[in-house]
């Protein structure tokens, strides 16, 4: 952990822990109203739910290098990046609960979180967020700012046309753009080896004449260093990078996934190497923080997250007719045909 400031280490721990606690709580509330018989459309949080437990290092150890002027685009599995990027937690949970107070007034849902204040967005179409980040990077270059744009994707998204077109554009125009590939081995039920013709997506950087990095075994420290270099290079106008990190998907693709396609030992093995626990132990060993510090920090985190959930639970639902608003900047209400 040489030359990583204690502040950064604590920040990374805090964000990873916040995300983990957030997701574990979401895992529970998602099941409300879905028992004894699971029904995806029932309960206070209906629809698909993609959780990121185990994938926290990718988000926290990259985003620690970003400011609110830097852009992040994410995917259908967006909570860990959203939390690291500083998306308003209350409004984010309220959105997931479909409340009027949510980021999108309940119109978006968990796959569609937009917080322009911290330049965060995500979406449900694999690969589609990559060019959005390229566009933000283009805007930054046009404005002469040293702001960067980072697209987070899964390893499965590297085989979409959007990936290729976006990387070529970013490289061609030498944009401050980084793509972080969270290789959790799976695209739903399709293993990386059955989807991607190369074992490491870092080599794909060669196809664009840019820099490619791989981070092994979900290591928050290694991810921190690699990201630092990539972000600094981007800010200096030295062009885009591809970063692929081996990470862990503890849960199913979405909640309710029977997971018949992977063997039962995989996850327990991964959990033995839990990245948050690893970082905590490291920091204790290196005396970067005491057991007390962690206890205090964890308590703060639980309280913050719990409060945000409360806010969401206690918020109002939108009115049915609100569905007709926000299609365009001006209201559509009077233009409706029926």
């Amino acid at each position, binding site marked *: 952990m040489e030359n990583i400031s204690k502040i950064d280490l604590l920040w990374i721990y805090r964000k990873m822990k916040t995300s983990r606690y957030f997701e574990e709580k979401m895992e529970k509330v998602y099941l409300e109203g879905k028992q004894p018989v699971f029904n995806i*459309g029932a309960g206070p949080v209906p629809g698909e739910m993609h959780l990121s437990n185990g994938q926290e290092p990718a988000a926290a150890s990259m985003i620690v290098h970003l400011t609110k002027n830097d852009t992040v685009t994410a995917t259908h599995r967006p909570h860990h990046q959203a939390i690291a990027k500083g998306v308003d937690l209350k409004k984010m949970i309220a959105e997931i609960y479909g409340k009027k107070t949510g980021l999108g007034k309940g119109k978006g849902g968990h796959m569609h979180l937009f917080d322009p204040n911290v330049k965060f967005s995500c979406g449900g179409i694999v690969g589609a967020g990559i060019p959005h980040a390229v566009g933000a990077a283009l805007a930054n270059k046009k404005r002469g700012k040293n702001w960067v744009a980072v697209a987070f994707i899964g390893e499965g998204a590297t085989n979409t046309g959007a990936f290729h077109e976006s990387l070529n554009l970013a490289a061609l125009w030498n944009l401050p753009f980084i793509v972080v590939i969270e290789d959790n081995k799976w695209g739903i039920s*399709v293993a990386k080896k059955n989807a991607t013709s190369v074992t490491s997506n870092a080599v794909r950087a060669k196809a664009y004449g840019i820099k490619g990095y791989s981070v092994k075994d979900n290591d928050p420290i290694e991810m921190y260093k690699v990201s630092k270099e990539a972000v600094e290079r981007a800010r200096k106008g030295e062009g885009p990078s591809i970063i692929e990190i081996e990470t862990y998907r503890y849960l199913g693709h979405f909640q309710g996934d029977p997971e018949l396609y992977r063997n039962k030992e995989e996850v327990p093995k991964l959990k033995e190497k839990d990245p948050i626990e690893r970082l905590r132990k490291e920091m204790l060993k290196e005396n970067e923080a005491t057991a007390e510090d962690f206890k205090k920090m964890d308590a703060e985190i639980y309280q913050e997250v719990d409060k945000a959930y409360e806010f969401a639970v206690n918020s109002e639902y939108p009115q049915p007719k609100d569905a007709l608003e926000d*299609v365009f900047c001006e209201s559509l209400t009077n*233009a409706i*045909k029926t």
Partner: protein
Amino acid sequence: MKATKEKTKKLTGSKAMIQALEQEMNRDDSIFIMGEDVGKYGGIFGSTTGLFDKFGGERVMDTPISETGFIGAAVGAAAEGFRPIVELMFVDFHGVVMDQIYNHIAKIHYMSGGAVKLPIVLMTAVGGGYSDAAQHSQTLYASFGHLPGLKVVAPTFPHDIKGMLISAIRDDNPIIFMFHKTLQGLGWMDQIDASLGEVPENAYTVTLNKAKVVRKGKDITIVGTQMMTVEALKAAEELAKKGIEAEVIDLRSIKPIDKETILQSVSKTHHLLVVDEDYLSYGITAEISAIVASEGFDDLNAPIGRLAIPDVPIPYSRVMEKFVIPDSKSIIDSVLKLITV
């Protein structure tokens, strides 16, 4: 052959699909299935469950998330004599591959003057109602219906699902086969009676381009598709109590539309309501209204009613989603407006 009244079994929409695929794959080994999670997973909406174990990875192929790649590959494989069945999980995702669909799959037979045949079936799940939001709840019926060179079908009941899927597989033309999530009878979604039905065990075909009168009535014709047919039938029961006998037509074929069945019904009821789970503008309500207004005009005694998703994206929050997707209640309201016109 038409459905034989012999040995039948109560199956869900999903099981009906699987049975059709299995029986046809046993019959013809030029058939193979490609798509995301069609293998071990068995299809996100249960369209291929068990087929990977029966036929192996050569004939039930998982693909990368490369829709233009594998749907484009279906063109090449079909031109070489195979009969690819390709699934793309949600209809919403087709935006990444529409070029292969409308400029190639739909037009190559025509542009080649009939020299090239592309017996491809594209299977995809449609529909909302379970809070999956704007990018996972669409039907996009008309987005496919508008484009020449495609037959687009959307069966409702298990019997039609099996029979029309077999017809689609045996057809030498490209077919878009849309199945509705809620009608698959999946254990993890809403359970509705319509998703269960008697299905003949043997292979049989149901014509692809015919609508079906699923309830007789004399006062008004209601045309629906998939879940809108189910809601229309519910509404018809309620309306009957009010003394209004609605005739309900299950469209089944989005393209071509079976004009005859619709016009004949309207010539009897003189009233028409079209209900659609797709967007209002340029949708099914538009096309059917136009057909009747141009070819059945004199049979109409009242304005045509249109009920569809108002031109808004599908919102996530349950209260708003319920508001935009038509249901038996909004159907009843519309009928009462039309009849008392």
